């Protein structure tokens, strides 16, 4: 917003105007005004949240069974996989309206964009494939046969290696994106759901929902070098079901969503020790850090809400009601 200052105005008036504009900007609330998009699996909607006011500002009706959700690299669109409609819908971030579709292969669940923003890799849950989509041309350009029930998708920071986890065969498949061939499969604990690379590419973290662990994998050696186990005082092991993982850009802190344990584990990125457990809402599966990494937002599928965690103080500071069975979350930079 640039104030139009007339050359013909008197000096005191001009300064007064400038000062009030500056004051307005100073007191215009928090600087971290982003927009979060949440897929509500059961109500077939996407909730749009203003992270300044921590309010739902719009609810967009989408197709059936929305789950995986992400921003395109250019921030122009939110992509949401609507599994029962076998497609990916696009939401224009300028208008927050539906604006076209991308092909996805059958029953898309999770997907990931390559670092260039040119290709989308989609996990087709019932088809045991990863479908490759050219985002600009909006066409399918190939597919890769993977293990049974693919879900988790991770991509190395250089875009050369795609990792896809198979829920039933308990594998993390390392796929060369140039040849589209699986180069290595690493066995992890039962029912892997999510895969995340550190920003520097030095580690891959894979969560095992039924195994109750997160495997730390060396991506160069294709070896599990450590496993994180989670123990919450007074809680039996069965509800501790790790799903989503988010790691800060500096690699120093990781967050793991523990499903029906209703807690998020805070993990030291170097030692891989759990430093804290935070009680959030029910059945916490997926999370996202705001672009300034000040807040972590979690989707709580059974309590139908989001929890907002202040990353500096590691406290839950807010709860926002959204649609039914919130699943995924993506946060845009504006």
């Amino acid at each position: 917003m640039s104030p139009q200052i007339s050359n013909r105005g008197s000096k005191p008036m001009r300064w007064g105007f400038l000062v009030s504009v500056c004051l307005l900007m100073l007191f215009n609330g928090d600087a971290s005004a982003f927009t979060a998009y949440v897929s509500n699996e059961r109500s077939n909607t996407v909730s749009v949240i203003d992270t300044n006011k921590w309010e739902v500002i719009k609810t967009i009706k989408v197709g059936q069974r929305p789950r995986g959700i992400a921003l395109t690299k250019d921030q122009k669109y939110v992509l949401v996989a609507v599994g029962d409609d076998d497609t990916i819908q696009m939401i224009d971030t300028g208008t927050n309206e539906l604006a076209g579709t991308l092909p996805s292969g059958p029953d898309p669940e999770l997907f990931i964009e390559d670092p260039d923003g040119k290709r989308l890799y989609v996990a087709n849950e019932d088809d045991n494939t990863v479908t490759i989509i050219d985002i600009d041309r909006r066409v399918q350009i190939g597919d890769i046969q993977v293990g049974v029930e693919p879900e988790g998708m991770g991509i190395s920071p250089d875009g050369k290696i795609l990792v896809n986890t198979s829920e039933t065969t308990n594998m993390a498949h390392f796929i060369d994106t140039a040849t589209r061939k699986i180069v290595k499969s690493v066995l992890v604990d039962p029912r892997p759901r999510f895969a995340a690379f550190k920003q520097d590419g030095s580690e891959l973290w894979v969560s095992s929902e039924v195994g109750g662990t997160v495997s730390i994998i060396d991506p160069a050696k294709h070896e599990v070098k450590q496993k994180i186990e989670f123990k919450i005082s007074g809680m039996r092991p069965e509800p501790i079901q790790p799903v989503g993982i988010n790691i800060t850009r500096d690699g120093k802190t990781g967050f793991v969503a523990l499903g029906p344990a209703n807690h998020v584990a805070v993990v030291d990125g170097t030692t891989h020790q759990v430093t804290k457990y935070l009680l959030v809402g029910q059945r916490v599966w997926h999370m996202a850090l705001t672009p300034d990494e000040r807040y972590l937002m979690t989707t709580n599928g059974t309590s139908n809400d989001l929890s907002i965690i202040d990353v500096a103080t590691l406290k839950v500071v807010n709860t926002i009601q959204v649609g039914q069975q919130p699943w995924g979350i993506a946060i845009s930079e504006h």
Partner: protein
Amino acid sequence: MNFFRLALILSTMIAALPSSARAADRRDPDWPCVQPKVPQMSVAAMWDGPSIADVGNAWQDDPTIKDLVVRLAARRTPVDAAERVISGFITGTDAEKQKKAKMLFAGLFDSLSQQRSEIVSGIERVARKQKELADRIRSDVTALHELEDKSEQDQIKINALADQVEWSTRIFEDRRKTIRYVCEAPTAIEQRVFTLGRAIRKTLD
């Protein structure tokens, strides 16, 4: 026995049997639900207020609390009404509020935890019955094949056995749908405990 009728029964049965890919929780292969089996609720998953470890059964000795637990635990009490009752009840000094909150949450947790355990046992019982029924259907179909293969077919016996298979398959399919629905009940109970626990916790802030 009509070949097409047999084929229809067989294909229905095969379609109705749980797919090995989606069904099982590795830790308990007899658990029929897609949600991994969680045998019991944990207080730690529901409550970050003052510890209720010292309450035990004391909540049952307080008639007011006992009545409230029955009322608030009941599904027919809408959640927002329950929340209003909670905020109306947990009043007084900080010490009084804390005592009431602990007793009330302990009562709700115990009561709904028990209901949940009964449902989990019920699901396991039905899953066992399904397995037995599937085995019976399989052996009946084998017996039907043998009867059909005989040079002199006993049509009365064949028809009777075919009817039995058809009937058993229908029960199997109905029960399968019921199981899918009932599998959501444990989570629904957890949802209620969590929501009411949050409302109780809020009164202490």
